[in-house]
């Protein structure tokens, strides 16, 4: 990787100004995937002096500063209590402790990595992203944007929620990226996201609506729901798995996931 300059801003306004001064100026999160995501940068902006490394528990929500490490999130008691600990569970399956000590939630979100295990989980938890310039944005709207905004992610806010949660990562080895991941929560209604398809995680809105229209979910309804999921969630091939294999995985694990939370 080629970096012309390295810059540690002392204020958010300074960071925002430098970020937008040149299209090839970039913010670094934890840097765990920097070798695969950045090749040439004019000014690399590092946010560690801006007090964005915190996890704050309020009455109704948990706020996670964008420079918080995945490891700090994984062991945080408040985060462990969200929807059966779905977020902590998903994090604990990402690489090893050493990588989770450097990887940040800000980098994981802003990278919009197709293999991400967290973007689906954050969507079923209805997380909100707090940006310096753009204000508050729902995570699903962010995922659906075609372009990543040239903005600074300050924090992620997740409403406190009990209910059930289930996350499944299917990978060739523990240290590998997912070949499919499924995140599902059931609180007032069911929420489902499927990621690493191999494209980025998306919500299965029609499948959710179908399941949420019944008071009692039978096996027949689960089978019908999975058929609807196949209509709206597009699967594909990549070097890790074929579309056919992903279809088998989704059929099996989506059923299991629904049974697990209902």
């Amino acid at each position, binding site marked *: 990787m080629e970096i012309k300059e390295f810059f540690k801003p002392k204020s958010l306004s300074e960071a925002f100004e430098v970020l937008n001064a040149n299209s090839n100026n970039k913010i670094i999160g934890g840097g*765990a995937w920097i070798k695969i995501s950045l090749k040439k940068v004019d000014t690399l902006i590092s946010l560690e002096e801006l007090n964005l490394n915190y996890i704050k528990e309020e009455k109704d929500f948990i706020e996670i500063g964008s420079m918080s490490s995945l*490891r700090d999130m994984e062991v945080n008691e408040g985060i462990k209590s969200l929807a059966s600990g779905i977020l902590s569970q998903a994090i604990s399956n990402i690489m090893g*402790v050493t990588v989770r000590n450097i990887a940040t939630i800000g980098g994981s979100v802003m990278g919009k990595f197709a293999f991400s295990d967290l973007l689906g989980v954050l969507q079923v938890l209805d997380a909100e992203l707090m940006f310096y310039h753009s204000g508050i944005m729902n995570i699903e709207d962010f995922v659906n944007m075609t372009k990543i905004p040239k903005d600074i992610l300050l924090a992620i806010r997740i409403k406190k929620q009990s209910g059930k949660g289930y996350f499944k990562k299917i990978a060739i080895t523990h240290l590998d990226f997912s070949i499919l991941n499924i995140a599902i929560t059931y609180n007032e209604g069911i929420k489902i996201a499927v990621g690493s398809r191999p494209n980025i995680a998306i919500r299965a809105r029609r499948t959710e609506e179908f399941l949420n229209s019944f008071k009692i979910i039978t096996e027949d309804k689960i089978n019908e729901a999975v058929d609807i999921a196949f209509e709206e969630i597009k699967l594909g091939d990549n070097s890790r798995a074929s579309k056919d294999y992903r279809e088998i995985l989704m059929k099996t694990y989506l059923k299991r996931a629904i049974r697990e939370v209902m």
Partner: protein
Amino acid sequence: MKIDLIVNKQKKTFLIEPNEYLLDVLRRYDYQSVRRGCDNTSCGVCTVLLDNKPVPSCSVLAIRCEGKEITTVEGIADEAEKLAHYFGELGADQCGYCNPSMALTVYSLKQENKNASVEEIKNYLVGNLCRCTGYVAQHEAIKRYLGDES
């Protein structure tokens, strides 16, 4: 450019490039126990402690470590010696290439949870690969080391 790092409790000045990783800088300055493996965060043999937390030095830009504490296996020599004793006792050691990184991660686990079960040991060490041993003897040796209060 120049940066100051505190390596094994000694403050030193290093000449670096902005795109250099901590692994490359440490090895260039003869910290040879910090080893190169996959160079992409997968194998863990480049592990050092950064402000007391194990990190893959192959993926940490050296410039971001300005003023921070770096610990290599030499900085925990007494603890590494104890672990080596149990590794030897149980035949948990073969080529030894991963030993410095393994010792640092195990040391860190001991700070966090000295009562870790074998399952917790496995989970904590999942990012530190060993190509020789098959892990079973290592996990038992680590369990004994964690219980060593001496």
